């Protein structure tokens, strides 16, 4: 009885819906643990792209490996280990970069390149259509910068560049 009462009292303080885990892009340092710590075979963390912040650089630090032999779409030049970034010419000298989420493994290598040397328009987010919503996120338990936190299920993203969220 006491258990029921106390639980109900606690539930009255809380939100009606379940809360979900999300990455705060401001705290993320792209250590790469997201790719390997998720309970899913392929992590539910994916790279997302805020086009409003993107510089459409020809020389994208998220797309090209630092010691890329040539600046073209060859696999040896790409930062992404799965080739999940699509590069499309828009107009000279601008290029558009889109993430193929079915290929992205959430390793954050492109995010690191873009954050350290570019505009920081690429960032990592938990995609909630993939996530199985564990009560204790397996990635959150290993995240060394405490970038994971619970967010309301009605708006479960911490968008970069959006009002008040992220950076």
């Amino acid at each position: 009885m006491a258990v029921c009462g106390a639980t109900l009292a606690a539930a009255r303080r809380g939100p009606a819906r379940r809360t979900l885990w999300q990455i705060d892009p401001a705290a993320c340092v792209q250590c790469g643990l997201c790719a390997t710590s998720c309970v899913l075979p392929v992590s539910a963390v994916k790279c997302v792209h805020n086009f409003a912040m993107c510089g459409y650089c020809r020389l994208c630090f998220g797309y090209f490996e630092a010691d890329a032999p040539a600046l073209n779409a060859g696999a040896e030049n790409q930062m992404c280990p799965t080739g999940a970034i699509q590069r499309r010419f828009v107009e000279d000298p601008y290029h558009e970069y889109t993430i193929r989420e079915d290929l992205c493994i959430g390793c954050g290598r492109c995010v690191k390149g873009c954050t350290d040397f570019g505009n920081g328009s690429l960032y990592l987010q938990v995609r909630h259509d993939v996530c199985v919503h564990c009560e204790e996120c397996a990635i959150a338990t290993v995240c060394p910068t405490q970038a994971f936190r619970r967010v309301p299920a009605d708006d479960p993203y911490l968008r970069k560049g959006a009002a008040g969220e992220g950076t």
Partner: protein
Amino acid sequence: MRPLRTILPSLATAFAAQASDRFPKPDFEAAYQPPAEVWPGAGTALGEAIDVALLAAALGLAAHLALGRRSRRGIAVLSVVCLAYFGFWRRGCLCAVGAIQPVAEALFRGTELPLATAAIFLLPLIFALFFGRVFCAAVCPLGAIQDLVAWRPQRLSRWLASPLTLVPPIYLALALLLAGTGSAYVICRFDPFVPLFRLSGNLHGILAGICLLLLGVVLARPYCRFLCPYGVLLGWFSRFSWRHLTITPEECIRCRLCAESCPFDAILPPQPAAAPEPLPTAVRRLGRILVACPLIVLAGGWGFARAGIPLARLHSDTRLLEQIALEEAGMAVPSVESDAFRRSGRLPDELRQSVAGRRRALGRGGWWVGMAVGVVFAARLLGASVRRRRDGYEPDRLHCLSCGRCFRACPVEHARLRRKAATEE
């Protein structure tokens, strides 16, 4: 063309401060629309309400099948359906067993507890209070998967089974302590069957699940009986349940067939009233118990408070601090975690404080939950020393999983079914 490697360091220093606007957004000459951003939702509030309603409906149906229809077949079919939906389809994450932990965290740390989680935690308990452990019988996917493989259940000797039933309260206390201090959700982390439901997870988890299922062939539902922390709570609620499944529909004829049929050893034999004890022996026995009880309680508290030090390592902050200390002593090379920590701008002192705070909380909380475990054990001791009269075979309400296997073993039930069939004709 210069390789990027030679450009990068100069760029890094040039743009060290401002991350955004290093490369201003271009003014496109041609009409250009960036691709629309997609933000997939996580189901709706209605979806969560439907989940809770489905759980309630499954529990209601299970209670009806166990107490009203008295149908073992119905319970078995429902358990397979629930295994398919709550287990394999929802991948085990609509789970009352795991819901203990957010509830504990909300109670002890004041974190937010969503209503849906509270409902998932409470519904099986409320049903247990009215109808016994019908959740275990047919709704819980963890139980259902073990029920399916219980082909050749063997009886466990009492001297082995009794100590093993003390494990679930200890596991429950550990789960409460670790969730209540925000250290870890051990029930989820060491859940042996969820990796099988998801068909993914670490190797240890999958192997543990397979081993438990193999063990479950000869020892029926080992996780439910000797580990499940939620089963402890359900047992307490079921102990005082309003109605409970009965083995025989009418009077017991003491044939013992039901006790043979129960794979969980959860049927209590008839017991004559205890012969009156001579007063001096009774006083001596009472004295011994009264001395033992406080000792058990204190031993529980001390044991759990001591366990806090190794348990703290379940939280990544503790491991990180140890790693950093090793690195500073020159005994380890930097790891991914320590490297990320240094880049994050968090201070080592902050980390040290958080770890010390958690150690203190684990020590304090350890005393409380340890003493609670001691109280549970002492109550077991008291319960074992009192002989209650039982006229016939009865389900042990604490441990009966309401699976209904005993129905078909009871000759009185067969007579009832024949009479019922005759009147229907």
